């Protein structure tokens, strides 16, 4: 009698676990369905596309994602914005991404070295640094040299904006001790916006996107630290067709215009 009851309980547990697993599986299926049903080469992409993109692309890519969705009914673009290096690491560790847009070739190299990119990455924009200061520039910052006397936030050297900042500071011969090294460019920007630091080195595009709250000061050394942004569809993309279509779209004339308006230089 007890044996029967025990068996039932075991069966119930196993069933519950199985149901749970199936639920997970079915949840992941929609993004798995490739868009090659009609067999034609230039199949219309459908389904979900997951794009991992550098934090500095947030504004323009959000825009472009909507435009891409409008042009391709049935496509849903989901973004994961963050520090390029962290994104690269999660892709290498198996995050289910379709496309990766990095803020530097070095971070893209992490992905290509792991053979995680499908094909060669293509540089689609470049970006230069500016000094972000609170509205009205209360500390009268005119160049890199002025940063030594004020509280400055930089990006950590592990992320592209930090690597670029180091290069620019080196070019200017400026030796400065920041108060914090942020994980991504938006973190460095927010600290200025909150008034917790007097300045930070961020991309020109970030200053432009946040022009209502901060001012930007450009400086000549920025020319020595231009960052190329590469984009690539990923080898293990759950939705390869849509991934390829999105990469093509980002390099289209329409996307170039949007990115140019955001302050990016287009090659």
């Amino acid at each position, binding site marked *: 009698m007890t044996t029967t009851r*025990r068996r039932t*309980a*075991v069966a*119930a*547990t196993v069933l519950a676990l199985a149901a749970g697993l199936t639920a997970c599986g079915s949840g992941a299926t929609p993004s798995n369905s490739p868009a090659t049903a009609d067999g034609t080469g230039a199949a219309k992409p459908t389904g979900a596309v997951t794009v991992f993109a550098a934090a500095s692309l947030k504004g323009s890519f959000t825009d472009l994602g909507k435009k891409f969705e409008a042009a391709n009914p049935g496509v849903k673009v989901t973004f994961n914005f963050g*520090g390029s*290096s*962290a994104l690269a*690491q999660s892709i290498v560790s198996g995050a289910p991404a379709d496309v990766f847009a990095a803020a530097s070739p070095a971070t893209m190299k992490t992905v290509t070295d792991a053979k995680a990119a499908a094909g060669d990455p293509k540089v689609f924009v470049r970006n230069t640094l500016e000094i972000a200061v609170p509205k009205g520039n209360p500390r009268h910052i005119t160049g890199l040299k002025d940063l030594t006397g004020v*509280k400055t*936030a930089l990006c*950590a050297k*592990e*992320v592209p904006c930090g690597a670029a900042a180091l290069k620019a500071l080196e070019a200017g011969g400026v030796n400065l001790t*920041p*108060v*914090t*090294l*942020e*994980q991504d460019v938006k973190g460095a920007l927010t*600290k200025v916006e*909150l*008034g*917790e*630091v007097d300045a930070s080195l961020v991309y020109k595009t970030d200053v432009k996107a946040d022009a209502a709250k901060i001012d930007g000061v450009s400086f000549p050394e920025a020319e020595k630290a231009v960052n190329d942004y590469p984009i690539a569809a990923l080898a293990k993309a759950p939705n390869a067709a849509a991934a390829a279509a999105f990469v093509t779209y980002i390099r289209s004339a329409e996307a170039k215009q949007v990115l140019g308006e955001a302050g990016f230089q287009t090659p």
Partner: protein
Amino acid sequence: MSRTAPRHRRRIPLALLLPALLGLAFLVLPLVGLLVRAPWSTLPEQLSSPEVWTALRLSLISATAATAVSLVVGVPLAWLLARTEIPGRRFIRALVTLPLVLPPVVGGVALLLVLGRNGIVGRWLDSAFGITLPFTTGGVVLAEAFVAMPFLVISVEGALRAADPRYEEAAATLGASRLTAFRRVTLPLIAPGIAAGAVLAWARALGEFGATITFAGNFPGRTQTMPLAVYLAMESEPEAAIALSLVLLTVSVAVLAGLRDRWTAGGQA
């Protein structure tokens, strides 16, 4: 604790055993994974870099300072909650335990908005004393204390409730003031509870990440504690991140081993 309940020779039902083992595996496997993937051959090299020691030293110092802060204000707070009938005591207790469930990063945002250079209190600190807390080691200590102190308060309050108040009453009838009775009678009585709470708070402070990075930022030698170093290393050198994680794991295990009777035994009266 050597008293064990009489054991029934009954088989453990499979329906309980299976999920229990699954749960155990779920909690233990990631740690095993850390050990398996650890770059043992290059470990000495990974751990000998000055950055690691800077971060570890800062972590130990700030966690200890945060524990000290928690002791100074947390023990009296626990006493207030356990031994007095102040109005709204239950509400106060709920507030005290809030950081236990609050995401630490929310705590960091709140600290930044209050104690930051433009915060309500921070602005005054800045203009009156020239003190700014964000991006300083002091800021790290505050962020850690915010997250860790509830552990101490709860632990001490529990000890106070378990301690017999009649000893204090006896001290009072013998002419001791309430403060003297607290110092000479209550404190020695609940010392083990305070110690357990302090170790727990220290361990929590050591692992603090969210509030620290939000409020105190990340700068090597000043605000970059071990968890921050692990996170940043993960972005470029996973090997280094694993090595650093091993150090934190070792410290945590050591702390728990020291606590084993007080905390993990459970069910003590």
